[in-house]
């Protein structure tokens, strides 16, 4: 069943066309990874899905409802939560208070503070600490916990690995199957291609705001991904560059 359906989405970032006529579908319970080089439009796409950047044209449907024009705070009630790039914890709030802000809208679902603590066993004993005192990896975990407490149908994760040691990143990604198992669909943006290929059911590679390669990780060759990622070679594999043509 389709959870998210994006059609011909164009988003401008100032004068720059960051996302250019992108279409994609996401089924319930799937993990989709968006990969691509810097400036390919990955983060802008996630921000547009979360309601922070207004799209120029196109439509976004969640659970069959059009949410293209909804402001960010209303999309939380509709079931979208974003783990923003750079974690963006509230620095004057404690760990627990940061988590609780996620539950502000009170959307019903499986996630509670206790359940997030089960997911990250180190968290309860540091819950009264200021969020700014945590390490990068710990902050990322709190940011994920905060998003989960909104009980989203669709969890958006932007650049989870940014500024974190690979071993930490791997450990955080290990919890993803548990999250998806609890009924959440995940759309992740990842610069670390090998990491994205490991955790995703399907990947989209963006180049200059367009999807140039799409498929399941095991069906794609390293060469295909490399070419799509850097935009090398005119002739992309047939059938994979559907949205890439002008």
């Amino acid at each position, binding site marked *: 069943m389709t959870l998210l359906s994006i059609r011909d989405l164009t988003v401008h970032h100032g004068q720059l066309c960051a996302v250019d006529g992108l279409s994609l579908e996401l089924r319930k319970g799937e993990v989709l990874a968006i990969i691509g080089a810097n400036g390919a439009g990955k983060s802008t796409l996630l921000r547009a899905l*979360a*309601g*922070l950047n207004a799209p120029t044209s196109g439509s976004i449907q969640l659970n069959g409802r059009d949410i293209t024009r909804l*402001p*960010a*705070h209303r999309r*939380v*009630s509709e079931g979208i*939560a*974003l783990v*923003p790039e750079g974690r*963006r914890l*509230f*620095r*004057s*709030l404690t760990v627990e*208070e940061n988590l*609780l*802000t*996620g*539950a*502000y*809208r009170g959307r019903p679902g499986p996630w509670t503070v206790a359940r997030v603590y089960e997911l990250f066993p180190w968290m309860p004993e540091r819950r009264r600490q200021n969020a700014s005192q945590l390490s990068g990896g710990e902050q990322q975990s709190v940011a994920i916990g*905060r*998003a989960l407490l*909104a009980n989203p149908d669709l969890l958006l994760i932007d650049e989870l690995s940014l500024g974190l040691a690979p071993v930490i990143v791997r450990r955080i990604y290990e919890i993803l199957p548990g999250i998806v198992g609890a009924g959440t669909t995940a759309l992740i943006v990842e610069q670390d291609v090998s990491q994205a290929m490991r955790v995703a059911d399907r990947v989209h590679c963006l180049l200059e705001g367009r999807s140039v390669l799409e498929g399941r990780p095991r069906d794609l060759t390293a060469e295909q991904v490399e070419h799509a990622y850097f935009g090398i070679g005119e002739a992309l594999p047939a059938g994979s560059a559907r949205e890439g043509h002008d």
Partner: protein
Amino acid sequence: MGWLNAVIQGLLLGGLYALFATGLSLMFGVMRIVNLAHGDLAVVASFLALALVSGTGLPLWVVLVVTVPLFAVLGYLTQRVLLQRSLSSGPLATLLVTFGLSIVLQNVLLEVFSADTRTLDGGSFATGSFELNGSISIGYLSLATFVLACAVLVGIQLFLSRTGLGRMLRASSDDRETANLVGADSRHVYGIATAIAFATVALAGLMFAMRSSFDPATGPSRLIFAFEAVVIGGLGSLWGTLIGGIVLGVTQSLGSQIDPALTLLAGHLVFLAVLAFRPQGLIAGRTA
């Protein structure tokens, strides 16, 4: 013993300064709005209470109970209708809007109430006092104001730390965009912050009105006390504001003990000293 009396009187006055400054601190903390009309709002509350007392004959405490919630509603509307629009145009726009509001309020008061100096008659409660010993007597009104100010500050602190909306106020102060991401409608959150600010400034305005005279042009000279209390205490910390108010009150009171003409100057000098040597304030914090 005259000095001890001065310290105690200053302490009690400081509570009122803190109550008065809380709204200024809160609006800056949450929305980065410097409300130049803050002092005038207190004066508007004073005149409103005066009009209600003389117009309806209701007892003063009823007027107080009516005015404060009314100002809270007024604050919410002011934020949603007036200030929210200017916020997107940058900090200078909000500064100009509140400056304009200050002038408009002063002139409306002048038009409606004339330039006469007034006081709000609090009856025997406002003038009565009890003696602690031979040289120290404490006014009922001063003590009640101090207790009320502390109670309000504790109440706001509890609201900010214990409730979901209060938490969201602090979160919005840290990072507005991320607060939107977790579901906070920043317009509503800002409205609530302004409502609290207006309610506390109204309460402070009524207390001022009972202890000293006021006229339509009193606002700006009151505003400076709020700024001083906030800066001395440290921006964005409620307890800092209380400490700042008390330091200001005690300094003024001690100054007047030396020479009555020194009252305000002593306060300004301490304010300047803090700005010069400890610009982050006595308590540097960010709770609101």
